[in-house]
């Protein structure tokens, strides 16, 4: 199935996020080989050049590494993956906090609320 993409943002940015998520969630583990640009473009239903651009972005960040012999792999640096995981979590928390404060919850109330709802 083609990936669901949002309408209002550049596609390559959404692909970058999607692949980051797939890596931190463990779908691709540290050191795993990634599909080729073309394969992944076909799976995602996106333009290969756009996929290439997203891979370029991920390479610059160091999350994926291009090897001369075996194509692209996920970095073996697990700390980096954890770091990105924390970053993503941080972003989610910020979004969450923003929404909650719109609803009128203070930080303390939110913590209380979270403990109770478990």
């Amino acid at each position, binding site marked *: *199935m*083609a990936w669901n*993409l949002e*309408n*209002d*943002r*550049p*596609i*390559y940015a959404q692909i970058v996020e999607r692949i980051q998520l797939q890596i931190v969630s463990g779908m691709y583990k540290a050191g795993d080989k990634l599909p080729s640009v*073309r*394969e992944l*473009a*076909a*799976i*995602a*239903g*996106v*333009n*290969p*050049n*756009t996929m290439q651009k997203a891979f370029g972005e991920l390479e610059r960040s160091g999350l994926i590494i291009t090897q001369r012999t075996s194509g692209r792999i996920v970095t073996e640096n697990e700390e980096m993956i954890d770091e990105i995981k924390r970053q993503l979590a941080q972003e989610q928390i910020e979004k969450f906090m923003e929404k909650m404060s719109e609803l009128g919850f203070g930080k303390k109330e939110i913590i209380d609320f979270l403990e109770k709802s478990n």
Partner: protein
Amino acid sequence: MSSLVECRNVTKCYVNGRPAVYNLNLTLEKGHIIGLLGPNGSGKTTLIKMINGLLRPTNGEVLVNGILPGPETKARISYLPERTYLEAQRTVKDIVEFFGDFYEDFRKDRAYAMLEALHIESDARLKNLSKGTKEKVQLILVMSRDAELYILDEPIAGVDPAARDYILRTIIANFNPAATLLICTHLISDIESILDEVVFIRDGQITLKTTVENIREQQGKSVDQYFREVFAC
């Protein structure tokens, strides 16, 4: 120069009425997937026919790889017209062999593999196939060539969503990175994500040529939404 198609001041007038294409300039580069988007009667099909050598411009010139359309350019262009052009008496296999005979860049094994994936019997006669299946056969034939330029006129209009997904994936997976794909359609949202560039055409003239990502970045909306705004009645 990496330009594949070059239209210079192209005008096409039919016998009576206003020109279908008027003083149009357009350059298509190699290695791109381009959407040619425009409302009905905007001159899309006329432009495509001129690139394919089915029509001659009244004025100006269309060049493919630097030469006028003719047998040499036709050998390098793989064209999917809106019309069904298959002879009803032939079998699917006959037409695959026919393509193999005339186009040096045709890959029979690829055609048969795709036919099998879409459960189309190669012994079936074309007159016994549904309209949707015939369209699939034509698309398979066109995508089984290693052409330099693919021109697809409404490639997914009559095809069901499942086959549409397969076809889009096939287009991405099969076409040569150095090749250019020109897709002419009004179902933009379905193909938007596979395009590099879009060309808007209106009243026989190019009104916009830019990348999909540019539109999304600058307008904060999809090409589909933007198209609806620009061409709102």
